[in-house]
């Protein structure tokens, strides 16, 4: 494969930064969550790119990146379920999911 490891790593880094910016700049809790999902996906692409770069090494090193990515997807699903349940619980009470309105407590 001519595609170099670096191009995938750069792509992963770019996506991570996009997700990071989204998670920091958005006010809506669901949008923050979507930014975090992009960050997790950037991690996945990085892991899989590394794992394919280790193609000629031992099986363990090569596949642990892919296995790690599957675990990240599973955990992301679990997290999304809990987060969305919390968001709904808050919304029913306040009719708003704006994180800047979560202001009952001072810093």
């Amino acid at each position, binding site marked *: 494969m001519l*595609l170099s490891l670096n191009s995938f790593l750069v792509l992963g880094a770019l996506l991570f930064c996009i997700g990071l910016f989204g998670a920091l700049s958005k006010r809506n809790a669901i949008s923050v969550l*979507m930014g975090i999902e992009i960050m997790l996906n950037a991690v996945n692409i990085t892991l899989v790119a590394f794992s394919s770069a280790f193609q000629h090494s031992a099986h363990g090193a090569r596949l642990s990146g892919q296995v790690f990515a599957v675990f990240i997807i599973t955990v992301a*699903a679990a997290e*999304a379920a809990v987060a969305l349940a919390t968001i709904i*619980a808050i919304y029913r009470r306040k009719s708003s999911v704006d994180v800047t309105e979560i202001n009952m407590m001072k810093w």
Partner: protein
Amino acid sequence: MLAGQIAFYVLAAAAIGSGIGVIAFRNAVYSALSLIVNLFCLALFFLMLNAIFLATVQVLVYAGAIMVLFLFVVTMLSPENDESLPTPDRLGLWQRGAAVGLGIILAGAIGYIVVGQAALHPDAVATGAQDLASQISRNGNTEAFGQALFHGFLFPFEVTSVILVAAIVGAVVLGRRTSSREGE
């Protein structure tokens, strides 16, 4: 080889564009749809990197299940967004025309493939199948992945099941409490 590179750059542009779309759209529904496009692009990257099983999981679980949950919550929590989404009534005539035209082209193409499938050369079919088999045996994908997951990584795999139990209990707790309070 060149085709692979072109595909990479086109997909990378799509992935980054849709990623920016997720954070640029003010409407959360559009953000969620952009995220789905983004996740699909990543699934295609996984295919390019020979992670076939992961690509499947990405489409089925991430772009499918998780994002449906997101869209469900987004649309449930912000009913006012319905008005900003174009509804069928407000679609222009040209859009309907384009939709019908594209639909006819798609139907024709599928029909052509289905009807013309018998015309595939048997040698080509055999070569294709062999190529796929040799690829899989060379790159050892889903099978090797399964071996890895259920041997060396069996323990973390078991732990994820406990994490899912915790998530289920948590989601039930959070969901049920509000309903019991409403019942008061």
